[in-house]
């Protein structure tokens, strides 16, 4: 099936969603997502961040769709024409979505352990407005303890349902879910149940905001002061491929490796995540690839060569002498 996204045509198999097709083209045209997770079935359709405009439904029916559609839940049709970043209406609507997501989200980034790798922070920076128009108190919840490993901050939750789907699809005996409805909806366990499952720690990685964070890393350090390295170990329960967040020789935190969409490559078990906090437990493979625009790449000089090439290009354009040829 041929589909055109932002003027770029691509051939995709039947049943692909618009979002998947856009991701095949590349990050320039892929819409941002907050609730959709390609590794979790039936995820997506809650947050409306990935809305796009379909200007031509298909070759058979070239009429445009009347409203922006959620690209994670809309399958492509042959000859479909989609506009994402080139459509002003979409960008305006997405700005509204970000405003809605931030309406009840506390602005406690200085405290939050997720700051620096938070998807909502990135989204707000890229699509949001600098000021809020909301003048009412934000919703608040009673704090509940859900075990010694995972810290729940319900005020920061944006109701993406990813953690519920992880519990459903990755583990058995799900004990947490969404209670109540509408504005009062919250992620909770039934009568303060404790989440105890060998893979329950993965809810931390799938959470796009700081609602579920690592209790063993709580307030230890900001992420940009730690150095991420890829490491592995022989684990009987999981693949053992993880990312260590080091400060000196101390392992402050262990997470799964994430791909360019911020999604976990392979889920890891709780033993790897919470118990192996020693460099001797791991075989270190090398520094993790971190995008240069990320705050985590601060003071890590993995991209020095790339930077040098860029500087030299700029200097050449300005008519400077070549650094290497200077007498």
């Amino acid at each position, binding site marked *: 099936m041929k589909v055109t996204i932002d003027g770029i045509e691509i051939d995709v198999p039947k049943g692909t969603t618009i979002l998947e097709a856009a991701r095949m083209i590349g990050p320039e045209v892929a819409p941002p997502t907050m609730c959709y997770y390609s590794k979790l079935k039936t995820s997506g359709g809650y947050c409306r961040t990935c809305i796009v405009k379909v200007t031509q439904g298909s070759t058979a029916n070239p009429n445009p769709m009347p409203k922006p559609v959620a690209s994670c839940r809309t399958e492509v049709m042959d000859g479909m024409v989609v506009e994402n970043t080139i459509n002003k209406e979409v960008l305006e609507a997405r700005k509204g979505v970000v405003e809605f997501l931030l309406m009840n989200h506390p*602005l406690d980034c*200085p*405290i939050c352990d997720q*700051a620096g790798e938070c998807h909502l922070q990135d989204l707000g920076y890229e699509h949001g407005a600098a*000021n809020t*128009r909301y003048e*009412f108190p934000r919703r608040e919840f009673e704090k509940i303890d859900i075990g010694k490993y995972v810290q729940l901050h319900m005020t920061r939750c944006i109701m993406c349902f990813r953690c519920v789907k992880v519990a459903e699809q990755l583990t058995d005996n799900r004990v947490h879910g969404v209670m109540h409805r509408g504005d009062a909806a919250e992620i909770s366990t039934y009568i303060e149940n404790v989440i105890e499952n060998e893979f329950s720690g993965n809810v931390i990685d799938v959470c796009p905001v700081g609602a579920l964070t690592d209790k063993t890393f*709580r307030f230890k350090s900001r992420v940009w002061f730690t150095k991420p390295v890829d490491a592995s170990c022989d684990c009987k329960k999981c693949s053992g491929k993880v990312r260590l967040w080091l400060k000196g020789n101390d392992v402050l935190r262990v997470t799964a490796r994430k791909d360019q969409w911020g999604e976990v490559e392979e889920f890891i078990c709780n033993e790897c995540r919470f118990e192996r906090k020693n460099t001797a437990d791991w075989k270190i493979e090398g520094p993790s690839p971190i995008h240069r625009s990320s705050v985590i790449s601060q003071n890590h000089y993995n991209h020095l060569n790339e930077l040098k090439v860029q500087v030299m290009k700029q200097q050449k354009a300005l008519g400077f002498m070549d650094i290497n040829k200077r007498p």
Partner: protein
Amino acid sequence: MQLTNRKVVVSKKEQSFAERIYLPAIAKGMMITASHLFKKSPTINYPEEKRPIAPVYRGQHVLKRDENGAERCTSCGMCAVACPAEAITMTSGERKKGEENLYREEKYAATYEINMLRCIFCGLCEEACPKEAIFLTDRLVDVEFERNDFIYGKDKLVEKIDKRIDVTKRQTQAVLDFKKIPGLKHNELYDPKKLNTGNKH
């Protein structure tokens, strides 16, 4: 290769009699010395007299407390990441129940150190701070004998409750106006009387 045309060829001329006895030159030098006796001295007697300094002078740092005496710093690390000299380090602690009067928010700086020898007093930490916790002041950093004494901890940085340090002069009108924007008041406590003020939408 000639680089400039300021080149002078040195000549070793024989001195005249007047030059050889040096007396006219000594007299000339003494005249200059004597003339300075009647000029106004640029030296001031420092500890007693002080030169005027700008209200935004960047001297020793202070970690401010809020109106209730609680520490404002939440140990977010923005100052440390902004610091070009990497002079700031900190560790965080979690506020326990009953410490609400000590620390303003859930997280606080358990230790906070500035190495005054590394610090270049650029004021970027002050600019980066989202909580208006750190300010540079018009105080000078004291002289010490040991290098270790220049690493200032919280004992020297946090202002004393009964000896507050005034930083209002540092906040320009533009900053004070910016803080009046109603949309920026998220962190304020809920007060129904304050509703329906500010911009309507």
